[in-house]
């Protein structure tokens, strides 16, 4: 059994694999499900932004959400840490469970959710504070025990930024380059020791070199974190992710609005080589989107 061929780009070996995609991990046990999304719809006021999303997110995997603009990728992502709560008109239907707990249960505290499920945004948004304070902010408000200097160093090392900034931790985070700022935001997100990292098009504002660094970084940290990434870039999804969920939009004939929906979710190999749905194939091959 070629059990060590877990890489996503080895086409030759894939043909001989008879195991199901879910059992591709080296130890061949079914991966733990972190998020289970069932019949999720999100509304902004009366407008239904995305409907009928059913997807599972596995532990220690990178799941990519791809699809054309306005298909609800980001909206769904923001349900995973209740970021949509900040938009007054947003309303969620269906279920998002995290380790079996309904995230939208009345008793669930969104602040606790966000400590466990970190987020990296589309545009780098460091606090207008020093590099050190940016990273220390989360641990400080969470009341984390331990030496703060160590926590900051560990997070910056994990984000691959330590060597570039260790001599100027007191300098403003806003003075870094775009790519460095985004890695600072990743360091800030992992400083609170979350289980999941949500990344909303983290490279869309970065040049190719900075993008490559972030992608490498994702591979380095995926052994410790479950990552969900929204991306416009199909090549990026193919490069970094283990599983890919494809979203698309449909026009609502009565109101001239668009509602997003999830078409399918499978291993990245399957989505890019042998998609189950014609719409996915059309998108992948560049016929629309």
């Amino acid at each position, binding site marked *: 059994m070629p059990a060590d061929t877990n890489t996503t780009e080895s086409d030759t070996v894939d043909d001989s694999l008879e195991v199901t995609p879910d059992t591709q991990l080296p130890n061949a046990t079914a991966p733990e499900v972190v998020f289970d999304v069932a019949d999720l719809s999100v509304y902004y006021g009366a407008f239904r932004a995305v409907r009928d999303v059913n997807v599972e997110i596995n532990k220690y995997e990178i799941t990519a959400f791809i699809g054309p603009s306005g298909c609800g990728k980001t909206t769904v992502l923001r349900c995973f840490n209740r970021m949509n709560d900040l938009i007054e008109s947003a309303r969620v239907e269906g279920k998002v469970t995290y380790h079996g707990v309904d995230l939208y249960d009345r008793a669930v505290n969104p602040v606790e959710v966000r400590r466990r499920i970190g987020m990296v945004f589309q545009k780098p948004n*460091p606090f*207008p504070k020093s590099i050190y304070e940016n990273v220390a*902010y989360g641990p400080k408000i969470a009341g984390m025990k331990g030496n703060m200097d160590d926590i900051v160093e560990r997070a910056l090392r994990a984000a691959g930024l330590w060597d570039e900034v260790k001599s100027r931790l007191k300098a403003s985070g806003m003075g870094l380059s775009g790519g460095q700022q985004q890695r600072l935001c990743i360091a800030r997100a992992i400083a609170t020791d979350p289980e999941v990292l949500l990344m909303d098009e983290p490279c869309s504002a970065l040049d190719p070199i900075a993008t490559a660094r972030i992608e490498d970084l994702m591979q380095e940290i995926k052994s410790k974190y479950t990552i969900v990434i929204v991306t416009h870039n199909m090549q990026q999804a193919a490069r970094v992710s283990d599983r890919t969920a494809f979203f698309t939009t449909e026009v609502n004939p009565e109101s001239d609005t668009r509602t997003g929906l999830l078409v399918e979710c499978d291993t990245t190999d399957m989505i890019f080589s042998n998609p189950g749905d014609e719409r996915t194939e059309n998108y992948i091959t560049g016929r629309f989107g």
Partner: protein
Amino acid sequence: MALTTPASVGSRAAERSVADQLKKGGTDWAGTGFRLVLLSALGLSMLILATLIFNVVSMGLPVFTSRFGGFMSGTLRTRPEEAGLHQGLVGSFWICAFVVALAFPLGIAAAVYLEEYAVDNRFNRFVNVNIRNLAGVPSVVYGILGFTIFTKALRSLTSTGRANGLTVMSAGLTLAVLVLPIVIITASEAVRAVPNSLREAGYGVGATRWEVTRTQVLPYAAPGIITGLILSLARALGEAAPLILVGAVSGRLATDPSFLDLSQLRDKFTALPIVVTTWTTNPNPGFDQLAAAAIVVMLAIVIVANTIAILLRNRYEKKRS
């Protein structure tokens, strides 16, 4: 030679036509005219201001050179060579103290609530619109309000027996109410200008609303809030109409307490703008110089306040980047 000539002539012709196209149009008369109009508008404004300041300073200067100390420590007298604005300074100081102590914290808190906590419903929109309306209400209306509430209804609180409610406390409370909507509006705008990405960054690492407001929103909004506060303070310092209604003394004022004497709060008072109007309307020409000198003092206070505001704003803005 013969063969190359047509080509070179052709290219030169093409060159000329591009040059012609690029250079056509000539002088932009309309643009120049517009620029001149704008410039003269600015020039006229500056000229009026400069004339005003020159006029006031040159008129008030003799008072400062001949009897600066006497002028600053003197009281309202009937003879111009003895009079001074000490009582007005003390009264205005306490009015500003009330504004700082009441309108600033109340206004900032109300603004933060409106922007960060209140949901966007019909009631809150109604409140928002009406705060804007309140900021536009003529100041004399606030004077009537202050007279009704602080001078009459709350007389036992704001006044000793002999002052009949016409006290510096009534005046301070009235002006605090007057600038409150201005503080709320300017602070609201400063809070609204905080980029949403900053809030999301805070919430994203598990901060509560209070933590995001305190550690991210307020520091970022601080320069704008401070600017609004100083503008409000300058407004409170310069208002005369409401003070007339709550009984600022314009003739003789028997008491002349020191700055920090708390017993004056519930006693009769006067304030700088009232002193200026009193002296300006006095038929004795000797008071014209005093009025000009008092105006210069008020201007100086406003300039100092603005300078402090700019310094504070720069400090906070530096922290932002």
